[in-house]
């Protein structure tokens, strides 16, 4: 009766452990196959969804605003899927947005560093020193990605309930340890943790609706009440509040919307300087 969100410094190693864990426990696996339905249901290009999960925003690549929107679509779909108990989730960033859901066991799997280095060197045709530098750069970019979109450092062990190093553990043993931990009472679902998950689902659905129009919006939900925080110039304040309220109210499950406005001082200064 719990959820397991796995994250890894190597996509292939993490996927392997996620698959084995789901098979060993008889759990469902929620992985990037979900992206096909996210793309189909929302009319989005699937390759952009993958890109949003993998790339750090850059001047030449995907813009941060678009990437944030795509990640929220993934988040909403993934959380909805995780409403079902007994799921292992991998490759969708769930470890970053399940924070606070007590029946979600968050696991970091560290690939065997020697194997990882050798694989990267072979795949890219690089000498070991350059492959090591490449891996270091990728790790830094990954941290920037998680900090930019989820305000958390994905590489920080404190983000997880469990960190397993495949350099020191066989894959089967790692799976066994994850299965044992998932059985602990503290990771069992309860009324409160289900409510936390439900609130996150609603907040993500509202964000899906609002982000395209209000890129700076922050949303929290509790029991059908949505609290949104948006930046605005003084003169647009009322109009913006109404627009946010109207859009958010269209999301099924929303009973009440409260909109807080933060004064956009930079915008205000720019306006008055004209």
């Amino acid at each position: 009766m719990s959820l397991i969100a796995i994250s890894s410094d190597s996509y292939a190693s993490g996927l392997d452990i996620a698959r084995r864990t789901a098979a060993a426990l008889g759990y469902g696996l929620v992985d990037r196959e979900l992206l096909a339905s996210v793309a189909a249901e929302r009319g989005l290009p699937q390759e952009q969804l993958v890109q949003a999960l993998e790339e750090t925003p850059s001047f030449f690549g995907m813009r941060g605003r678009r990437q944030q929107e795509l990640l929220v679509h993934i988040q909403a779909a993934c959380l909805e899927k995780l409403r079902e108990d007994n799921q292992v989730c991998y490759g969708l960033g769930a470890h970053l947005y399940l924070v606070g859901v007590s029946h979600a066991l968050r696991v970091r799997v560290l690939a065997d560093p020697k194997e990882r280095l050798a694989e990267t060197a072979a795949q890219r045709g690089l000498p070991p020193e350059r492959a090591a530098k490449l891996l270091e750069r990728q790790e830094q970019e990954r941290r920037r990605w998680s900090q930019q979109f989820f305000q958390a450092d994905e590489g920080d062990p404190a983000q997880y309930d469990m960190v397993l190093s495949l350099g020191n553990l066989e894959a089967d043993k790692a799976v066994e340890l994850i299965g044992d931990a998932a059985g602990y009472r503290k990771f069992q679902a309860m009324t409160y943790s289900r409510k936390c998950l439900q609130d996150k689902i609603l907040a993500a659905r509202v964000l899906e609706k609002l982000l395209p129009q209000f890129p700076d919006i922050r949303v929290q939900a509790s029991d059908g009440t949505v609290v949104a925080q948006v930046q605005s110039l003084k003169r647009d304040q009322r109009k913006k509040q109404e627009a946010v309220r109207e859009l958010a109210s269209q999301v099924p499950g929303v009973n009440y919307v409260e909109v807080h406005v933060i004064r956009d001082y930079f915008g205000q200064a720019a306006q008055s300087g004209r």
Partner: protein
Amino acid sequence: MPEPLEVLLLDDEPIVGRRLKPALAKIGCEVEVFENPEKALARLQQKEFKIVVTDIRMDDIDGMQVLEFVRQRWPQSKVIMITGYAMMSLAREAMEKGAFDFIAKPFKPDDLRRVIAKAADALGYHLDFAAAGEGA
């Protein structure tokens, strides 16, 4: 006539007991309400309640201590924790110590009735949940 399900309800806010006692009586629970944890523990020392509902944050003795006491004294009893200070670490701690469920305040009487009905099921009792009426 089915045997009533005996419930001890402990919350230092009197309004909680006043509201929940009739709500639980509607589904066939016989409820004893306590506002003072010491008195509740004294009662629990004497008598086994099938279900104990306790607030967590109280003066002197907190809900976690009540949970530990009940788990030791009456291991079959189901303990439901309610709190206005819910957070993940507290929820996990309560579950680890053997709580049956953990509910964040504020909640509707139906939310608690649903959990009590689940606990009753686990104890082999059947409560007439429909008798409470929708949202009552």
